[in-house]
């Protein structure tokens, strides 16, 4: 049995990638299983999906804690999520990144791989620059790096199960397959520095999660930052009205300001702004 864990953000297609991998494995004659795990569904929130591929029906219904491969659709998650947790020795860490795999930090023995799936997706007009749909390119890379599915199976699955732009997605899978770089495992690699895990939640005395909502910083979900060009702002307050998280406040002159600790970068303010004065800028 091969176990693969996907890390992405709501809206990036991690769940669809895991399901598509299962469909492709099934077309290859395997017995797959795929399921996602997420909290309250919101665009930008970290999402995990699990895919198991075996020759026999899968006899487990649990999350994957010791994966053979980890796929990271958003390199920003490397800094905030313990994506490599439990990776098997000689397992694969595959990251969507323009940088070479040498730049990745991984546990000793883990093979590192990277593919510039964002560039591939945009080249095939999949998604938007703000939200490129990278999953088919990443799956192509995964097929090459792990052999868990054949490119043929993946291509057939894309044709059968991807309703939008099947041809472009097929090409993206092919380019991902061709464009992935895999390093052999380095047993002498230094162990990654221990990750600063968030301290465990101390449940309040008594029964209730009476924690201040000021403490729930959701900025880590953001990949694009709204920038307001105040010279064209008409103070119409539409951004404030439509912001789903009350992340917009006003300065003394009545101009809107983004409370970046709470902005998830959803882009609704930019879409709703009548004079289009809000620009979504990709974060480094």
């Amino acid at each position: 049995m091969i176990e693969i864990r996907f890390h992405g953000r709501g809206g990036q297609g991690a769940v669809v990638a895991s399901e598509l991998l299962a469909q492709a494995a099934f077309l290859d004659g395997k017995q797959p299983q795929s399921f996602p795990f997420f909290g309250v569904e919101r665009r930008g929130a970290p999402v995990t999906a699990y895919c198991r591929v075996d020759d026999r029906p899968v006899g487990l219904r649990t999350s994957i804690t010791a994966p053979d491969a980890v796929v990271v659709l958003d390199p920003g998650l490397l800094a905030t999520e313990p994506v490599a947790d439990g990776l098997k020795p000689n397992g694969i860490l595959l990251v969507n990144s323009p940088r070479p795999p040498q730049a990745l930090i991984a546990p000793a023995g883990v093979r590192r791989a990277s593919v510039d799936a964002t560039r591939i997706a945009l080249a095939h007009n999949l998604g938007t620059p703000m939200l490129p749909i990278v999953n088919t390119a990443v799956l192509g890379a995964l097929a090459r790096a792990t052999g868990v599915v054949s490119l043929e199976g993946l291509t057939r699955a894309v044709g059968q199960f991807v309703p939008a732009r099947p041809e472009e997605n097929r090409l993206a899978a092919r380019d991902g397959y061709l464009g992935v770089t895999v390093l052999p495992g380095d047993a002498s690699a230094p162990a990654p520095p221990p990750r600063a895990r968030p301290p465990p939640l101390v449940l309040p005395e008594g029964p209730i999660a009476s924690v201040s909502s000021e403490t729930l910083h959701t900025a880590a979900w953001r990949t694009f930052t709204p920038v307001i060009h105040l010279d064209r702002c008409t103070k119409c307050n539409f951004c404030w009205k439509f912001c789903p998280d009350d992340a917009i406040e006003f300065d003394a002159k009545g101009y809107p300001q983004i409370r970046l600790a709470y902005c998830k970068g959803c882009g609704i303010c930019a879409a709703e702004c009548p004079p289009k004065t809000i620009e979504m800028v990709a974060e480094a």
Partner: protein
Amino acid sequence: MTAKVLSGNYAQSYAALLARAQVVSAYPITPQTSIVEKIADFVASGELHAQYVKVESEHSALQVVISAAALGARTYTATSSQGLLLMHELLHWASGMRAPIVMGVINRAVAPPWNIGADHTDTMSQRDTGWIQFYAESNQEVLDTVLQAYRLAEHPDVRLPAMVTEDAFYLSHTVEPVDVPDPAVVDRFLPPREPHAVLVPGEATRLGSFTGPEHYVDFRHQIGEAMARVPKVLETVETEFERAVGRSHGGALPTYRIDDADAVLITMGTSTTTARSVVDELRASGRRVGLAKLRLFRPFPDEELRRLARGVDRIGVVDRSYTFGPMGPAATEVSAALYTARHRPEVTSFLAGIGGRDVTPGEVRRMFETLLSGAPATVHWEDLEDEGVTRIHG
């Protein structure tokens, strides 16, 4: 102390008055009762300084008091049958929010067919919502239990909502003498609520927000632990109530003449009174029978029950509702609690009084005869034209 001839409904109303409930919500249409009408009179006359909120459904009625409780208020509402069923989702909210609401429930049959007679199906359907459940036997017990329920619900070791139920007609519309304690006496027993972990206007705080699998279980476990502390806390509440008011209702599982009993009948609500008279009658003719009342059904007083069962070989349980397993719901719980007991009596399930039927002395007498005859444990549907007996083992 003033003796008044009150209905069970008005006993609830006077208890809310004495408890100085600060927010009362009411859906004022069927299946609502005169409980909230009387409270509306108290508020209109200025006797009760409460915010009285009329709402468009029972769902909203419970939401109003959950919100008020989350702000630290002492709250009261009342409902019955279909109205309680409509509250179901918010019953879970109330316990999950650890809101110490006290609610009066008139036990009525569930439609269809329409029937407003006494029946416990409505509250039995809410067994697993995290509410403390009391089943009262008399209007005096209704009034006193509402007052005790506030102490219990607001106790730092508990902090859970409580419902005080009473049988339709047999209490709700029955008038009988009730001692209404002086407000000053009740004030000493039941001081104002001391809010804990509540919302404060102007401070950004969340209650009951999203919790993932990593912590949800802790919150459920906390509710379980709080429930487990209820019987102990109830003992101290009863002691203090007796000291202040001069009465006690015997805790979670009050018993009657069970010493040396060959057979004990366990009842809930008003069938207890009739059964007590039958016990006296049978004892007078030399039959060794006794009675126990499931006054507290949630949490289920399993320890008290095991203690009781030590010296008893045959137990009968009278249920005013049915669940679709082998027995009535209380009989199922009694059996489960006794399964691990060192001395395990036979348990017979009697289904009686369903949909407002009388539970008559003759019926209770037959139940005791069945138990004393040593017949194998069975399920007996009383009131049916044919025999209505199902063997479950033997």
